[in-house]
């Protein structure tokens, strides 16, 4: 990593943080639990780095093991995170029209 890459990464980080702050400030407190489980699923983006390590061949077995465990851990969050968020949201219903 050279200084140019570092700088552009810093810019991206800064802008993404501001976007995140603006977008998330608007989330209704009603949905704070689903918000946390969704961001949890999104942070499982660590799967990208994990895959790049788990899928290589020119490395000691130990490294492949680290990568594989990391892929499994990320997958737990992807599958679990999206599924439970969807389950939660399916529970939020408006009042049913009054029964006769």
């Amino acid at each position: 990593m050279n200084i140019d890459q570092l700088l552009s990464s810093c810019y991206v980080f800064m802008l993404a943080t501001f976007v995140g702050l603006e977008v998330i400030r608007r989330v209704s407190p009603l949905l704070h639990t689903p918000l946390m489980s969704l961001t949890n699923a999104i942070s499982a983006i660590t799967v990208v780095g994990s895959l790049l390590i788990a899928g290589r061949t020119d490395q000691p077995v130990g490294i492949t093991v680290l990568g594989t465990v990391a892929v499994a851990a990320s997958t737990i969050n992807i599958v679990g995170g999206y599924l439970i968020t969807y389950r939660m949201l399916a529970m939020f219903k408006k009042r049913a029209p009054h029964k006769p």
Partner: protein
Amino acid sequence: MNDHVIHGLYMASAACFILALKWLSAVPTAKRGVLTGILGMALAVGGTLLAPEIEHYRWILVAFAVGGLIGVPMALMPMTAVPQRTALSHAFGALAAALVGTAEFYLGHELTTFKMAAIGVEVVLGFLTFTASLMAFGKLQELLPTRPITYRGQNIVNLAVLAAALALTVLLVLDPGKTYLFPVIAALALVFGVSLIIPIGGADMPTVISLLNSYAGLSASAMGFVLNNKLLIIAGALDGSSGFILSIIMCRAMNRSFTNVLFGAFGQVQPAAVAGEQKQARSASPEEAAALLESANSVMIVPGYGMAVAQAQHSVKELFDVLTEKGVDVKFAIHPVAGRMPGHMNVLLAEADIPYDRLLEMDDANSELPQTDVALVIGANDVTNPAARTNKASPIYGMPILDVDKAKTVMVIKRSLNPGFAGIDNELYYLDKTLMLFGDAKAFTTQLVKQLAGNSSGGFH
């Protein structure tokens, strides 16, 4: 060529994540948000699998299968268990980041100062969040004592461990050849995670879980710096800012600062001020309480963690139904820190099939409470304590509360007059307008429902 395709997919994926969070802001669009998030993740995984670095898929498929097998049951847990489930998934996320950082270090490809610094951040944050989240999980699942555990000089010990980890990381960044430092740093970070959570009590869990959410995101972002991958940086930063905002909201709702939450060991039992008059509380039977509820025009139910512990949310829904049928206007007042994570009560009540437009945020609830006939407190304590408004000596003075005491009549379902989690006596219980309904939240609510249903079958109206 392949490279450009991957970049395109990553860019689309980042856009999906931003839209996912944007659409999550309100119930009508929230499901679309989740589906967009899934699309974003599919694009990211698909793009990565195209990368030339990935030469074999055997272990990846095994890992996918294992992850799916553990992930699905974790998504099917009951809503009462969502806080501990969330803590556990913060642990997995942080573990993935820490392990990838470790692998990157031992692979040792071009460990420039910058890259080494990013690996340091990734690994320290990852490992400390891993053990801290496991500890939070243990406390929430009640495998560990939920009361804060403190000892003399605890903060100094904790800060010393963190300082040592950071100092060694700096040394390693300056000379990545000193590989023997790496395991020491990892171990210190793991220890710090544990010691950070030991003094934290259950009532502070909403803030701590939010903070760990933020850390897990930041470690993913650090991974993006290591791999020079913008998608990781963006997704991690979104997660980091989300956790940050939630922890600020939680801190504000308790009128406390970050440092106070992390180092203040709130919830220690205060030497109870036994001094002074023996205060008298009035109690009422289910029959009396049911009669009062039935004659009310408006009822505000104030649920707290106690309702979750007693698994009373479904009986509360029955109470809601029977009262609504009798023409009583029933609403719910939700304090931001009710429960063990942000928004916990809302999800529990939604699971019990209570329509979400009946759930009021604190400010709205407070503007309605003075006109409310009956405020019914179920398993909430400190968030209803008027001492937060009036008593400067109280440890919770200044904390925003639900002004339950302004309702015309107050009923509190509680096992006994024992002080709540924070060990603070609640003067609400001794007001003239307050009736204590002694019993288990679920059992008492069920009795109320029986009484109310019985009255109507008697056909008197």
